[in-house]
């Protein structure tokens, strides 16, 4: 099988890119104990901010 250096370089570059993307995607390991905690903090913060907003007319 023959292919040009440019073709080979392109294939390798593309493959490397895909691997990097796949590995980044694969880094889905997370601390199970922390599930939901970030959202709870966010909800508390947003509630405080909304409470400080002026009352709506409607």
């Amino acid at each position: 099988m023959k292919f040009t250096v440019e073709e080979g370089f392109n294939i390798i570059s593309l493959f490397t890119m895909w691997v990097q993307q796949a590995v980044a995607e694969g880094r889905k390991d997370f601390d199970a104990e922390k599930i939901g905690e970030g959202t709870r903090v966010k909800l508390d913060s947003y509630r405080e901010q909304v409470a400080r907003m002026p009352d709506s007319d409607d």
Partner: protein
Amino acid sequence: MRRSKWWVAYVAVLMLLTTLGCVSGKARVDGTVVNDTFAAEAFVQLKQMDITMGVAVDTVFQLTKVGLVSKEEYMRFDKLAVRANAAVRTARDAVLKYVEYRSQGLPANDFNVYVALALSAVEDVQDLRALYDERTVIQ
């Protein structure tokens, strides 16, 4: 330029396999990757629910800031979101207990009920978010 279909197919299959292999989610408890398939899947599912919730909360908050959602409506949404968040954390604790019992060789409790309840609660939040999102289209 010469082309080799076989090489292209070979690389494409490799890419597909690599992607499929890497995309499977993993959860850790105390730094240890959960090996129990059911628990790991439940954690991944709960994590996805939590991400969905986070996006919904961000969206509705932004809509409130620009005046498309009223303060009162946000507070009603908040109550629903707090309940959904509590359901997600309850389900998470149930799965953590399951992992703990399994590691000790004890009979494991059924966590699926809690995960299903959490999913239902998160779907309610999503429905309300979708309702508010429609206002951006109307505007």
